[in-house]
Protein backbone atom coordinates (compact mmCIF):
# COMPACT_ATOMS: atom_id res chain seq x y z
CA UNK A 1 0.00 0.00 0.00
CA UNK A 2 2.81 2.36 0.99
CA UNK A 3 4.57 1.46 -2.25
CA UNK A 4 1.41 2.25 -4.25
CA UNK A 5 0.97 5.64 -2.56
CA UNK A 6 4.62 6.46 -3.12
CA UNK A 7 4.30 5.51 -6.78
CA UNK A 8 1.15 7.62 -7.16
CA UNK A 9 2.82 10.62 -5.52
CA UNK A 10 5.81 10.20 -7.82
CA UNK A 11 3.50 10.09 -10.87
CA UNK A 12 1.61 13.19 -9.69
CA UNK A 13 4.96 14.99 -9.27
CA UNK A 14 6.12 13.80 -12.69
CA UNK A 15 2.96 14.64 -14.69
CA UNK A 16 3.01 18.43 -14.51
CA UNK A 17 6.75 18.36 -15.03
CA UNK A 18 6.33 16.47 -18.27
CA UNK A 19 3.38 18.59 -19.41
CA UNK A 20 5.38 21.73 -18.69
CA UNK A 21 8.38 20.51 -20.65
CA UNK A 22 6.20 19.81 -23.66
CA UNK A 23 5.01 23.40 -23.75
CA UNK A 24 8.31 25.12 -23.24
CA UNK A 25 10.42 24.79 -26.37
CA UNK A 26 9.05 26.02 -29.70
CA UNK A 27 10.33 24.62 -32.99
CA UNK A 28 10.55 26.93 -36.00
CA UNK A 29 9.54 24.84 -38.99
CA UNK A 30 9.76 25.05 -42.79
CA UNK A 31 8.83 22.60 -45.59
CA UNK A 32 10.95 19.47 -45.51
CA UNK A 33 12.33 19.94 -49.01
CA UNK A 34 13.50 23.51 -48.45
CA UNK A 35 16.76 24.85 -47.15
CA UNK A 36 16.79 28.30 -45.57
CA UNK A 37 18.67 29.82 -42.68
CA UNK A 38 16.91 31.69 -39.91
CA UNK A 39 19.78 33.25 -38.06
CA UNK A 40 18.30 35.25 -35.22
CA UNK A 41 15.26 36.49 -33.32
CA UNK A 42 15.35 39.88 -35.10
CA UNK A 43 15.22 38.06 -38.43
CA UNK A 44 12.24 36.01 -37.25
CA UNK A 45 10.64 39.27 -36.12
CA UNK A 46 11.16 40.79 -39.59
CA UNK A 47 9.52 37.74 -41.15
CA UNK A 48 6.54 37.60 -38.79
CA UNK A 49 6.04 41.40 -38.92
CA UNK A 50 6.05 40.91 -42.73
CA UNK A 51 8.85 43.43 -43.20
CA UNK A 52 10.96 40.79 -44.90
CA UNK A 53 8.89 39.21 -47.66
CA UNK A 54 11.44 37.15 -49.62
CA UNK A 55 13.98 34.44 -48.87
CA UNK A 56 17.51 34.84 -50.25
CA UNK A 57 16.38 32.65 -53.17
CA UNK A 58 13.73 35.32 -54.00
CA UNK A 59 11.00 32.85 -53.11
CA UNK A 60 8.13 34.54 -51.26
CA UNK A 61 8.14 33.92 -47.50
CA UNK A 62 4.78 32.60 -46.30
CA UNK A 63 4.69 33.04 -42.51
CA UNK A 64 1.93 31.22 -40.64
CA UNK A 65 0.46 32.02 -37.24
CA UNK A 66 -1.74 30.11 -34.83
CA UNK A 67 -4.98 31.76 -33.66
CA UNK A 68 -4.45 34.86 -31.49
CA UNK A 69 -5.86 33.11 -28.40
CA UNK A 70 -3.61 30.06 -28.77
CA UNK A 71 -1.15 29.78 -25.86
CA UNK A 72 1.74 28.95 -28.20
CA UNK A 73 0.95 31.98 -30.41
CA UNK A 74 0.87 34.19 -27.32
CA UNK A 75 4.24 32.87 -26.19
CA UNK A 76 5.82 33.11 -29.66
CA UNK A 77 4.46 36.60 -30.12
CA UNK A 78 5.76 37.85 -26.77
CA UNK A 79 9.20 36.34 -27.30
CA UNK A 80 9.70 37.27 -30.96
CA UNK A 81 7.49 40.31 -31.56
CA UNK A 82 7.66 41.77 -28.04
CA UNK A 83 3.88 42.15 -27.82
CA UNK A 84 0.77 39.96 -27.51
CA UNK A 85 -1.37 39.45 -30.65
CA UNK A 86 -4.20 41.64 -29.31
CA UNK A 87 -1.83 44.64 -29.22
CA UNK A 88 -0.85 44.18 -32.88
CA UNK A 89 -4.14 45.11 -34.46
CA UNK A 90 -3.16 48.65 -35.42
CA UNK A 91 0.04 47.38 -36.98
CA UNK A 92 -1.80 44.88 -39.17
CA UNK A 93 -4.35 47.49 -40.21
CA UNK A 94 -1.48 49.81 -41.15
CA UNK A 95 0.23 47.08 -43.12
CA UNK A 96 -3.04 46.28 -44.89
CA UNK A 97 -3.20 49.99 -45.84
CA UNK A 98 0.07 49.38 -47.68
CA UNK A 99 -1.21 46.30 -49.45
CA UNK A 100 0.44 43.60 -47.36
CA UNK A 101 -1.79 41.14 -45.52
CA UNK A 102 -0.86 39.70 -42.10
CA UNK A 103 0.47 36.13 -41.87
CA UNK A 104 -1.94 33.32 -42.68
CA UNK A 105 -3.67 31.93 -39.57
CA UNK A 106 -4.33 28.26 -38.82
CA UNK A 107 -6.41 26.92 -35.95
CA UNK A 108 -4.26 24.09 -34.59
CA UNK A 109 -0.72 22.78 -34.48
CA UNK A 110 -1.75 19.90 -36.74
CA UNK A 111 -3.05 22.44 -39.27
CA UNK A 112 0.23 24.33 -38.90
CA UNK A 113 2.23 21.18 -39.69
CA UNK A 114 0.08 20.43 -42.76
CA UNK A 115 0.17 24.03 -44.05
CA UNK A 116 3.93 24.36 -43.68
CA UNK A 117 4.54 20.90 -45.20
CA UNK A 118 2.43 21.77 -48.26
CA UNK A 119 3.30 25.44 -48.85
CA UNK A 120 6.52 26.45 -50.63
CA UNK A 121 8.29 29.24 -48.76
CA UNK A 122 6.28 28.67 -45.58
CA UNK A 123 7.60 29.18 -42.07
CA UNK A 124 5.70 28.45 -38.88
CA UNK A 125 6.10 27.16 -35.36
CA UNK A 126 4.86 24.31 -33.21
CA UNK A 127 5.56 22.85 -29.81
CA UNK A 128 8.96 21.20 -30.34
CA UNK A 129 7.52 17.86 -29.23
CA UNK A 130 4.89 18.07 -31.99
CA UNK A 131 7.32 18.63 -34.88
CA UNK A 132 7.47 15.51 -37.05
CA UNK A 133 8.96 14.21 -40.30
CA UNK A 134 6.55 16.18 -42.51
CA UNK A 135 8.50 19.38 -41.80
CA UNK A 136 12.03 20.51 -41.07
CA UNK A 137 12.87 22.30 -37.81
CA UNK A 138 15.46 25.01 -38.50
CA UNK A 139 15.63 26.62 -35.07
CA UNK A 140 14.30 26.22 -31.56
CA UNK A 141 13.01 28.98 -29.33
CA UNK A 142 14.24 27.99 -25.88
CA UNK A 143 12.71 28.61 -22.47
CA UNK A 144 15.10 31.51 -21.78
CA UNK A 145 13.93 33.24 -24.98
CA UNK A 146 17.08 32.51 -26.97
CA UNK A 147 17.18 30.88 -30.42
CA UNK A 148 19.15 27.65 -30.86
CA UNK A 149 20.10 26.06 -34.15
CA UNK A 150 20.90 22.79 -32.42
CA UNK A 151 18.00 20.64 -31.29
CA UNK A 152 17.84 20.80 -27.49
CA UNK A 153 16.99 17.88 -25.25
CA UNK A 154 13.21 17.92 -25.23
CA UNK A 155 12.17 15.09 -22.95
CA UNK A 156 9.03 14.53 -25.00
Amino acid at each position, binding site marked *: MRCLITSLLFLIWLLPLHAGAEGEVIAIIIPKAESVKVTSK*PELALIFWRKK*LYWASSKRIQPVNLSPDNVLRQKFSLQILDSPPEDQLEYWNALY*FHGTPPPHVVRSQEAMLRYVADTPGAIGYVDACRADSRVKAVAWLLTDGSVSHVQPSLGC
Partner: protein
Amino acid sequence: MRNMHLLIAVSVAFALGICKIAVAEEPDLNEASFIDGFKLGGYTSAGINLHPGGKTDAKLNELSLFVTWDNGGRLRFFSEIEIEKPLTWRSGDGFTGKDSYLDIERFYLDFNLSEKLNLRTGRFLTPTGRWNVMHAAPLVWTWSRPLVTSRMFPEAVNGVMFYGAAPFSDKAFEYKLFIEAMQERSRDRGDSIPYKDTKGMRFEITGKFNWGLSLLDTVEDLDLVSTRYRMVGLDFMVQHKGWELSAEALQRYYTNGNDGGSGAYVQAVAPLGNQWFAIGRLENFQRPAEGSSERWVLGTAWRVTPSQVLKLEYVGGDRERVESPKGVMASFAILF
Protein backbone atom coordinates in the same frame (compact mmCIF):
# COMPACT_ATOMS: atom_id res chain seq x y z
CA MET B 1 -4.11 63.92 -67.13
CA ARG B 2 -7.83 63.56 -67.81
CA ASN B 3 -6.96 60.46 -69.85
CA MET B 4 -4.98 59.12 -66.93
CA HIS B 5 -7.96 59.58 -64.61
CA LEU B 6 -10.21 57.88 -67.14
CA LEU B 7 -7.78 54.97 -67.39
CA ILE B 8 -7.68 54.63 -63.62
CA ALA B 9 -11.48 54.80 -63.35
CA VAL B 10 -11.85 52.07 -65.98
CA SER B 11 -9.22 49.97 -64.20
CA VAL B 12 -11.08 50.30 -60.91
CA ALA B 13 -14.39 49.41 -62.50
CA PHE B 14 -12.75 46.39 -64.13
CA ALA B 15 -11.15 45.41 -60.84
CA LEU B 16 -14.48 45.76 -59.01
CA GLY B 17 -15.90 43.24 -61.38
CA ILE B 18 -13.21 40.66 -61.00
CA CYS B 19 -11.70 41.13 -57.56
CA LYS B 20 -12.36 39.27 -54.40
CA ILE B 21 -13.01 41.60 -51.48
CA ALA B 22 -9.94 41.58 -49.25
CA VAL B 23 -10.39 41.13 -45.52
CA ALA B 24 -7.46 42.10 -43.30
CA GLU B 25 -7.89 39.15 -40.95
CA GLU B 26 -8.14 36.48 -43.62
CA PRO B 27 -5.30 36.72 -46.12
CA ASP B 28 -4.85 34.14 -48.79
CA LEU B 29 -1.15 33.62 -49.29
CA ASN B 30 -1.26 30.64 -51.53
CA GLU B 31 0.13 30.87 -55.04
CA ALA B 32 -2.63 32.44 -57.10
CA SER B 33 -3.50 32.68 -60.76
CA PHE B 34 -3.30 36.07 -62.46
CA ILE B 35 -6.95 36.90 -61.81
CA ASP B 36 -6.91 35.49 -58.26
CA GLY B 37 -3.98 37.78 -57.51
CA PHE B 38 -6.29 40.82 -57.44
CA LYS B 39 -7.71 42.07 -54.15
CA LEU B 40 -9.91 45.04 -53.38
CA GLY B 41 -10.13 47.04 -50.18
CA GLY B 42 -10.34 50.62 -49.01
CA TYR B 43 -11.62 53.02 -46.41
CA THR B 44 -14.05 55.86 -45.97
CA SER B 45 -14.78 58.46 -43.33
CA ALA B 46 -17.28 61.19 -42.53
CA GLY B 47 -17.27 63.92 -39.95
CA ILE B 48 -18.73 67.14 -38.61
CA ASN B 49 -16.89 70.26 -37.43
CA LEU B 50 -18.51 72.84 -35.13
CA HIS B 51 -16.25 75.88 -35.57
CA PRO B 52 -15.65 78.37 -32.73
CA GLY B 53 -17.53 81.16 -34.55
CA GLY B 54 -20.74 79.15 -34.73
CA LYS B 55 -20.42 77.85 -38.29
CA THR B 56 -20.78 74.15 -38.86
CA ASP B 57 -19.71 71.93 -41.71
CA ALA B 58 -19.98 68.24 -42.31
CA LYS B 59 -18.57 66.10 -45.05
CA LEU B 60 -18.01 62.70 -46.43
CA ASN B 61 -14.22 63.07 -46.39
CA GLU B 62 -13.23 60.45 -48.90
CA LEU B 63 -14.03 57.16 -50.50
CA SER B 64 -10.75 55.38 -51.03
CA LEU B 65 -10.29 52.12 -52.93
CA PHE B 66 -7.21 49.89 -52.89
CA VAL B 67 -6.59 47.56 -55.79
CA THR B 68 -3.68 45.18 -55.23
CA TRP B 69 -2.27 42.42 -57.36
CA ASP B 70 0.01 39.78 -55.92
CA ASN B 71 0.32 36.23 -57.16
CA GLY B 72 3.16 35.23 -54.84
CA GLY B 73 5.97 36.18 -57.22
CA ARG B 74 8.58 38.93 -57.13
CA LEU B 75 6.30 41.52 -58.72
CA ARG B 76 3.43 43.20 -56.87
CA PHE B 77 1.07 46.02 -57.76
CA PHE B 78 -0.73 48.45 -55.47
CA SER B 79 -3.02 51.37 -56.17
CA GLU B 80 -5.19 53.66 -54.11
CA ILE B 81 -7.74 55.74 -55.95
CA GLU B 82 -9.60 58.26 -53.86
CA ILE B 83 -12.66 60.41 -54.36
CA GLU B 84 -11.91 63.33 -52.05
CA LYS B 85 -14.77 65.24 -50.37
CA PRO B 86 -17.56 63.74 -52.48
CA LEU B 87 -20.22 65.51 -50.41
CA THR B 88 -19.98 68.57 -48.18
CA TRP B 89 -22.58 70.39 -46.11
CA ARG B 90 -22.06 73.89 -44.72
CA SER B 91 -24.42 75.79 -42.46
CA GLY B 92 -26.16 78.40 -44.57
CA ASP B 93 -25.03 76.87 -47.89
CA GLY B 94 -26.51 73.39 -47.74
CA PHE B 95 -25.07 70.39 -49.57
CA THR B 96 -22.52 70.66 -52.35
CA GLY B 97 -20.27 68.34 -54.33
CA LYS B 98 -18.14 71.07 -55.91
CA ASP B 99 -15.18 70.38 -53.59
CA SER B 100 -14.96 66.83 -54.91
CA TYR B 101 -12.11 65.53 -57.04
CA LEU B 102 -10.55 62.22 -58.02
CA ASP B 103 -7.08 61.63 -56.67
CA ILE B 104 -4.58 58.92 -57.49
CA GLU B 105 -3.00 58.64 -54.07
CA ARG B 106 -0.77 55.68 -54.88
CA PHE B 107 -0.11 53.69 -58.01
CA TYR B 108 3.05 51.59 -58.07
CA LEU B 109 4.81 48.34 -58.83
CA ASP B 110 7.08 46.65 -56.31
CA PHE B 111 9.83 44.34 -57.53
CA ASN B 112 12.02 42.23 -55.27
CA LEU B 113 15.68 42.51 -56.29
CA SER B 114 17.26 40.62 -53.38
CA GLU B 115 16.63 39.62 -49.78
CA LYS B 116 17.22 43.17 -48.53
CA LEU B 117 16.57 45.26 -51.63
CA ASN B 118 13.28 46.08 -53.33
CA LEU B 119 12.39 48.53 -56.09
CA ARG B 120 9.20 50.60 -56.17
CA THR B 121 8.24 52.57 -59.27
CA GLY B 122 5.19 54.77 -59.70
CA ARG B 123 3.35 57.14 -57.40
CA PHE B 124 3.84 56.56 -53.68
CA LEU B 125 3.40 58.45 -50.41
CA THR B 126 6.53 60.41 -49.50
CA PRO B 127 8.23 58.45 -46.74
CA THR B 128 8.89 61.49 -44.53
CA GLY B 129 7.86 61.19 -40.89
CA ARG B 130 5.27 58.74 -39.57
CA TRP B 131 1.90 60.42 -40.18
CA ASN B 132 2.14 60.97 -43.93
CA VAL B 133 2.50 57.30 -44.79
CA MET B 134 -0.21 56.31 -42.29
CA HIS B 135 -2.64 59.16 -42.82
CA ALA B 136 -5.82 57.12 -43.51
CA ALA B 137 -8.68 58.07 -41.21
CA PRO B 138 -9.13 54.57 -39.67
CA LEU B 139 -5.40 54.42 -38.81
CA VAL B 140 -4.92 57.74 -37.03
CA TRP B 141 -6.37 58.78 -33.69
CA THR B 142 -7.76 62.17 -34.66
CA TRP B 143 -9.67 63.67 -37.56
CA SER B 144 -7.47 66.76 -37.44
CA ARG B 145 -4.01 66.38 -38.91
CA PRO B 146 -0.89 68.22 -37.70
CA LEU B 147 0.08 70.87 -40.27
CA VAL B 148 3.71 69.84 -40.11
CA THR B 149 2.82 66.47 -41.61
CA SER B 150 1.31 67.92 -44.79
CA ARG B 151 2.54 71.43 -45.66
CA MET B 152 6.29 71.15 -45.45
CA PHE B 153 6.87 68.58 -48.18
CA PRO B 154 4.99 66.81 -51.01
CA GLU B 155 2.57 64.19 -49.69
CA ALA B 156 3.30 61.90 -52.65
CA VAL B 157 6.07 61.48 -55.20
CA ASN B 158 6.00 60.09 -58.74
CA GLY B 159 9.28 58.30 -59.05
CA VAL B 160 11.50 55.48 -57.94
CA MET B 161 12.24 54.14 -54.47
CA PHE B 162 14.69 51.52 -53.23
CA TYR B 163 13.77 50.04 -49.87
CA GLY B 164 14.42 47.12 -47.58
CA ALA B 165 14.90 45.88 -44.04
CA ALA B 166 17.57 43.94 -42.17
CA PRO B 167 18.15 42.76 -38.60
CA PHE B 168 20.01 45.30 -36.46
CA SER B 169 21.13 44.16 -33.01
CA ASP B 170 17.85 42.96 -31.44
CA LYS B 171 15.81 45.34 -33.61
CA ALA B 172 15.26 45.98 -37.33
CA PHE B 173 16.82 48.57 -39.60
CA GLU B 174 14.66 49.83 -42.44
CA TYR B 175 15.70 52.16 -45.24
CA LYS B 176 14.04 53.99 -48.12
CA LEU B 177 15.81 56.00 -50.83
CA PHE B 178 13.64 57.80 -53.34
CA ILE B 179 13.74 60.31 -56.18
CA GLU B 180 11.01 62.02 -58.17
CA ALA B 181 10.97 61.16 -61.86
CA MET B 182 7.82 62.96 -62.96
CA GLN B 183 6.42 66.22 -61.61
CA GLU B 184 3.30 66.45 -59.44
CA ARG B 185 0.38 66.11 -61.79
CA SER B 186 -2.35 68.21 -60.23
CA ARG B 187 -1.51 71.84 -59.53
CA ASP B 188 -5.12 72.96 -59.49
CA ARG B 189 -6.13 71.77 -56.02
CA GLY B 190 -6.54 74.87 -53.90
CA ASP B 191 -5.32 73.42 -50.62
CA SER B 192 -2.16 71.66 -51.77
CA ILE B 193 1.29 73.18 -52.20
CA PRO B 194 3.01 72.10 -55.44
CA TYR B 195 6.50 70.65 -55.15
CA LYS B 196 8.97 69.32 -57.71
CA ASP B 197 12.44 67.74 -58.00
CA THR B 198 12.01 65.87 -54.75
CA LYS B 199 14.53 63.36 -53.50
CA GLY B 200 15.22 61.99 -50.09
CA MET B 201 15.78 59.11 -47.76
CA ARG B 202 14.39 57.67 -44.58
CA PHE B 203 15.98 55.38 -42.02
CA GLU B 204 14.15 53.64 -39.19
CA ILE B 205 15.10 51.52 -36.23
CA THR B 206 12.01 49.53 -35.35
CA GLY B 207 11.17 47.31 -32.41
CA LYS B 208 9.62 48.16 -29.06
CA PHE B 209 10.75 51.75 -29.66
CA ASN B 210 10.57 53.08 -33.21
CA TRP B 211 12.91 55.85 -34.31
CA GLY B 212 12.95 57.54 -37.69
CA LEU B 213 15.25 59.97 -39.49
CA SER B 214 14.01 61.63 -42.68
CA LEU B 215 16.09 63.72 -45.09
CA LEU B 216 14.55 65.53 -48.03
CA ASP B 217 15.54 67.92 -50.80
CA THR B 218 12.62 69.54 -52.65
CA VAL B 219 11.50 72.63 -54.56
CA GLU B 220 8.35 74.47 -53.50
CA ASP B 221 6.99 75.39 -56.91
CA LEU B 222 4.63 78.34 -56.43
CA ASP B 223 3.29 80.40 -59.37
CA LEU B 224 5.67 83.33 -58.96
CA VAL B 225 8.70 81.78 -57.37
CA SER B 226 10.32 78.39 -56.92
CA THR B 227 12.35 77.80 -53.77
CA ARG B 228 14.59 74.88 -52.98
CA TYR B 229 14.56 73.53 -49.44
CA ARG B 230 16.47 70.91 -47.55
CA MET B 231 14.75 69.26 -44.67
CA VAL B 232 15.62 67.02 -41.76
CA GLY B 233 13.05 65.23 -39.63
CA LEU B 234 13.10 63.09 -36.52
CA ASP B 235 10.27 60.98 -35.17
CA PHE B 236 9.57 58.24 -32.67
CA MET B 237 6.72 56.06 -31.49
CA VAL B 238 6.35 53.61 -28.65
CA GLN B 239 3.30 51.45 -27.85
CA HIS B 240 2.58 49.27 -24.85
CA LYS B 241 -0.72 47.68 -23.82
CA GLY B 242 -2.85 50.33 -25.51
CA TRP B 243 -0.65 53.25 -24.45
CA GLU B 244 1.08 55.15 -27.20
CA LEU B 245 3.47 58.07 -27.32
CA SER B 246 4.60 59.51 -30.64
CA ALA B 247 6.22 62.66 -31.94
CA GLU B 248 7.56 64.19 -35.13
CA ALA B 249 9.78 67.23 -35.64
CA LEU B 250 10.76 68.70 -39.02
CA GLN B 251 13.17 71.53 -39.77
CA ARG B 252 13.48 72.98 -43.25
CA TYR B 253 16.33 75.14 -44.54
CA TYR B 254 16.89 77.34 -47.56
CA THR B 255 19.95 76.39 -49.58
CA ASN B 256 21.83 79.25 -47.90
CA GLY B 257 21.21 77.63 -44.51
CA ASN B 258 18.52 80.05 -43.26
CA ASP B 259 15.37 78.84 -41.52
CA GLY B 260 12.81 77.74 -44.11
CA GLY B 261 10.08 76.58 -41.75
CA SER B 262 9.66 74.05 -39.00
CA GLY B 263 7.10 72.23 -36.95
CA ALA B 264 6.54 69.45 -34.47
CA TYR B 265 3.87 67.56 -32.61
CA VAL B 266 3.79 65.20 -29.67
CA GLN B 267 0.79 62.93 -29.14
CA ALA B 268 -0.17 60.64 -26.27
CA VAL B 269 -2.85 57.95 -26.26
CA ALA B 270 -4.19 56.25 -23.11
CA PRO B 271 -6.54 53.26 -22.96
CA LEU B 272 -9.77 53.90 -21.03
CA GLY B 273 -11.20 50.38 -21.26
CA ASN B 274 -13.78 48.74 -23.53
CA GLN B 275 -11.82 49.96 -26.58
CA TRP B 276 -12.15 53.62 -25.60
CA PHE B 277 -8.99 55.72 -25.76
CA ALA B 278 -8.08 59.25 -24.65
CA ILE B 279 -5.90 61.34 -26.95
CA GLY B 280 -3.91 64.49 -26.30
CA ARG B 281 -1.69 66.35 -28.75
CA LEU B 282 0.36 69.53 -28.86
CA GLU B 283 1.66 70.91 -32.14
CA ASN B 284 3.25 73.94 -33.67
CA PHE B 285 4.11 74.93 -37.20
CA GLN B 286 5.71 77.83 -39.01
CA ARG B 287 6.28 78.30 -42.69
CA PRO B 288 7.68 81.50 -44.25
CA ALA B 289 4.67 82.04 -46.54
CA GLU B 290 2.06 81.26 -43.89
CA GLY B 291 3.35 82.45 -40.54
CA SER B 292 3.03 80.28 -37.46
CA SER B 293 0.27 78.22 -35.95
CA GLU B 294 -0.17 76.46 -32.64
CA ARG B 295 -2.73 73.79 -31.83
CA TRP B 296 -3.72 71.57 -28.93
CA VAL B 297 -6.07 68.64 -29.24
CA LEU B 298 -8.02 66.72 -26.61
CA GLY B 299 -10.15 63.86 -27.74
CA THR B 300 -11.43 60.37 -27.39
CA ALA B 301 -11.75 57.47 -29.80
CA TRP B 302 -13.84 54.32 -29.64
CA ARG B 303 -12.74 51.30 -31.67
CA VAL B 304 -16.20 49.92 -32.42
CA THR B 305 -14.59 46.97 -34.21
CA PRO B 306 -10.97 46.43 -35.25
CA SER B 307 -11.70 48.25 -38.52
CA GLN B 308 -14.16 50.94 -37.35
CA VAL B 309 -13.37 53.94 -35.20
CA LEU B 310 -15.51 56.76 -33.84
CA LYS B 311 -13.64 59.95 -32.86
CA LEU B 312 -14.60 63.02 -30.87
CA GLU B 313 -12.08 65.80 -30.36
CA TYR B 314 -11.69 69.45 -29.49
CA VAL B 315 -9.03 71.45 -31.30
CA GLY B 316 -7.88 74.71 -29.74
CA GLY B 317 -5.03 77.13 -30.37
CA ASP B 318 -4.36 80.44 -32.09
CA ARG B 319 -6.33 81.80 -35.06
CA GLU B 320 -8.30 79.32 -37.18
CA ARG B 321 -7.05 78.56 -40.70
CA VAL B 322 -8.79 76.84 -43.59
CA GLU B 323 -6.20 74.07 -43.61
CA SER B 324 -6.17 73.79 -39.82
CA PRO B 325 -9.72 74.12 -38.46
CA LYS B 326 -10.58 74.46 -34.78
CA GLY B 327 -13.56 73.57 -32.64
CA VAL B 328 -15.43 70.38 -31.90
CA MET B 329 -15.01 67.55 -34.39
CA ALA B 330 -16.76 64.22 -34.54
CA SER B 331 -16.03 61.60 -37.18
CA PHE B 332 -16.44 57.96 -38.08
CA ALA B 333 -14.01 55.93 -40.18
CA ILE B 334 -14.12 52.42 -41.55
CA LEU B 335 -11.46 50.25 -43.17
CA PHE B 336 -12.77 47.54 -45.47
